[in-house]
């Protein structure tokens, strides 16, 4: 399976993401720059974390309006898998590819720590390496990860199985409504999450809990 990593000014987790994808799939991902209007033929497009455009206006707001996002939207419409991590999640929300919004952490503090994540939906292209209800460890590092959706949207995503990850065991680091840590679109091919699974994929990281997300999305494991 081929993958692509989007690079934008201010994103700084792209190298970690490239390393994770390379190690897990055995193939180096192609990189896509902000001005590109065509995305190569890949199975998975990843928007990594960071601070695109300095987080000006709102996190992810400027990035979501760059030409490359139109190309990503077109690919997502065709069914190509898209994963947004941290700032990538913020960008997908601002671009309207996912429902809801991310706001300033309820504590107003930047949080950089490890949290517990419950796999709420293991029947997705991104989580089939896990089992439903399984709790994994994952690092988080963000200032604006407080997920919000209006009551109607919340009801819809909860009942459609679009809530994929929840902060577990009281580790919600940002005040997210319903402890939501990751959501996907109705079609199930676009996932956004605040935690950084790419930073927990091998023994040198102190664990490999995050590996399953990439192994699932890249179909490294059997379905």
């Amino acid at each position, binding site marked *: 399976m081929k993958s692509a990593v989007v690079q934008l000014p201010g994103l700084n987790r792209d190298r970690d993401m490239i390393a994770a994808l390379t190690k897990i799939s055995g193939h180096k991902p192609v990189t896509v720059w902000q001005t590109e209007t065509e995305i190569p033929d890949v199975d998975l497009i990843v928007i990594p974390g960071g601070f695109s455009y300095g987080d000006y*206006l*709102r996190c992810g*707001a400027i990035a979501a*309006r760059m030409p490359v996002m139109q190309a990503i939207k077109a690919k997502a419409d065709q069914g190509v898998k898209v994963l947004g991590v941290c700032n990538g999640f913020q960008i997908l*929300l*601002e671009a309207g590819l996912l429902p*809801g*919004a991310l*706001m*300033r*952490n*309820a*504590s*107003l503090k930047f949080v950089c720590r490890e949290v517990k994540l419950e796999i709420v939906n293991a029947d997705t292209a991104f989580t089939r390496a896990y089992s439903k209800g399984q709790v994994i460890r994952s690092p988080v590092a963000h200032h604006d990860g*407080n997920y*919000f*959706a*209006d009551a109607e949207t919340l009801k819809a995503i909860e009942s459609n199985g679009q809530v994929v990850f929840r902060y577990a065991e009281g580790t919600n680091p940002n*005040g997210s409504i319903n402890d939501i840590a990751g959501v996907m679109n109705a079609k199930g091919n676009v996932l956004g999450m605040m935690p950084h699974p790419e930073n927990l994929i091998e023994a040198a990281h102190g664990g490999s809990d995050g590996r399953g997300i990439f192994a699932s999305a890249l179909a490294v494991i059997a379905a």
Partner: protein
Amino acid sequence: MIKARVTVTLKNGVLDPQGKAIEGALGALGFDGIGQVRQGKVFDLQIETADKAKAEADLKAMCEKLLANTVIENYTISLA
């Protein structure tokens, strides 16, 4: 040239942690009786046109497309 001011505020019901912190700080300074503080953003724009109707339509589009995130924010437009 038309001067315009766009004000973006959080919708009712959306938690505003920054507004809450400011509310707390005002209380700490001795300002009593503050019911609520909500923080917003102000954009001052200069538009090179004399056509007020067009400016207003353009500003609305700017708000919808970029200046506000209508999932969580409302906006108002006023022309000078």
